[in-house]
């Protein structure tokens, strides 16, 4: 197919960007040039230099270390969110898709309700319920992501449940659960995979949005969204404070979306 070239072109570029990002973050877990929260009054707004590759913020903290840690937080929040979204999304989608009937009707109405709900408010409610912090953000976003995954899984299950191999399995005595999770589920993996990629990107952007509004991760812990919102004030004096976290978010999301595209064209 013509687009064959573009596909593995995506795969290569997407793979390298994501690979670099993951290395960048994994290093960040163990080693950062400076303690991300250590303040150095003399280095206030220090520009990009060999000592501080990305310069320093208004507290004289090394931006590179904070971005590494911040990227780590954003990544783990996004990963946690996608995990919750996918896990419950699969269960909800499988049940409603496979069995249908009133159960499907009710759960789909609940799904629409959550969809119609501005996710920011949902997060706010959870945050005030459980207190703010990384875990609460993960749970809040995770729940907000369940409907979209459930919808994707449900449509796949509806498509597969009428296939002949499912009838065959029933004739051979396979139970409903076995059919759902052993027979049908593997067929949804490719669609699920690209949905996870897209979900991941939305989770990264949502986390950044929430910490931008100040309800996400708490200071002094670094989070890319919060750094961006604080950097707005110093945009002229220290543009690097805004550009680097923004750049890291963009690279992370770009890497994953290219990978997602490459995988989607796989099937």
């Amino acid at each position: 197919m013509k687009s064959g070239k573009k596909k593995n072109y995506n795969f290569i570029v997407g793979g390298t960007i994501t690979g670099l990002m993951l290395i960048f973050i994994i290093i960040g877990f163990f080693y950062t040039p400076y303690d991300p929260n250590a303040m150095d009054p003399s280095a206030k707004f220090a520009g990009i230099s060999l000592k501080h590759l990305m310069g320093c913020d208004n507290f004289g903290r090394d931006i590179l270390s904070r971005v590494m840690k911040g990227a780590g937080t954003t990544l783990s929040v996004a990963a946690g969110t996608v995990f919750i979204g996918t896990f419950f999304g699969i269960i909800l989608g499988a049940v409603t898709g496979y069995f249908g009937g009133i159960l499907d009707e009710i759960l789909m109405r609940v799904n629409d309700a959550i969809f119609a709900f501005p996710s920011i408010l949902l997060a706010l409610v959870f945050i005030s319920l459980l207190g703010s912090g990384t875990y609460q953000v993960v749970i809040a976003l995770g729940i907000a992501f369940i409907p979209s995954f459930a919808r994707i899984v449900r449509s796949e299950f509806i498509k597969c449940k009428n296939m002949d191999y499912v009838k065959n399995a029933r004739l051979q005595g396979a139970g409903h659960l076995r059919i759902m999770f052993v027979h049908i589920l593997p067929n949804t993996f490719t669609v699920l995979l690209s949905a996870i990629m897209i979900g991941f990107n939305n989770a990264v952007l949502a986390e950044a949005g929430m910490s931008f509004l100040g309800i996400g991760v708490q200071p002094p812990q670094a989070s890319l969204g919060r750094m961006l919102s604080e950097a707005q004030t110093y945009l002229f004096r220290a543009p690097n404070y805004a550009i680097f976290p923004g750049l890291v978010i963009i690279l992370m999301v770009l890497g994953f979306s290219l990978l997602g595209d490459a995988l989607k064209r796989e099937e």
Partner: protein
Amino acid sequence: MTEQKDILTVSSLCVSFQDRSKGLFQKKNRIQVLKNVSFSMKEGEVLGLVGESGSGKSTLAKAILGLIPYEGKITQVSSYPQMIFQDPYGSLNPAKKVGWILEEPLRLKGGPDSAKRKERVREMLIRVGLDEKFADRYPNQLSGGQRQRVCIAGALMQEPRLLIADEPVSALDVTIQAQILELLERLHKEMGLSILFISHDLRVVYQMCDNVMIMKGGELVEQGTVEEVYFHHKNEYTGNLLQAAGIHI
């Protein structure tokens, strides 16, 4: 031949569907798909069922297999009849290897340990005329004919007494079709398998079946041996079918 006992008897079978297209509140009328169908099948017999699309032949198959609700009585000597389908692409799980697909019926029936199961799978593959190494291939790597052979192998794993073949060869080319029919014929002899052979192709039915039933609009309009039905048909619709298929006696 000893008096063969009936493997399957169907008496006054009716199946109807809710008409979904009407609104939430209007009175629902139910469409009659099968109108009191009755027949019986002998052990080891190949019974043909001919009808055009929408005549209800697949619905009958589903009722016998217990996949849909019905009124009337269906008695079977051995339970767990198996089925092979028309579309080779839809009847094999694309995400699994052929070996796994064939092992599944054994796993479900609490078959022996996995080594013995793999052995049984190899045996069956050879029996349906396929090489052993097909076990670790994926369905999409097989041709139409090969996939149909795997379906037959899968259906025979649990050694059913009754096999329902719903248009098994309609989607295949003529030459491949002949090979599959010949395979079914051999298995029927070797295993004493009774087959309910559903098809719209009168020539294939003539070659395969001992007796045949003609179905139209959910009713059996004619039954009998292939000779009687093809050469001395009583029902006018049967005549049309024969004439349309270019069978001039």
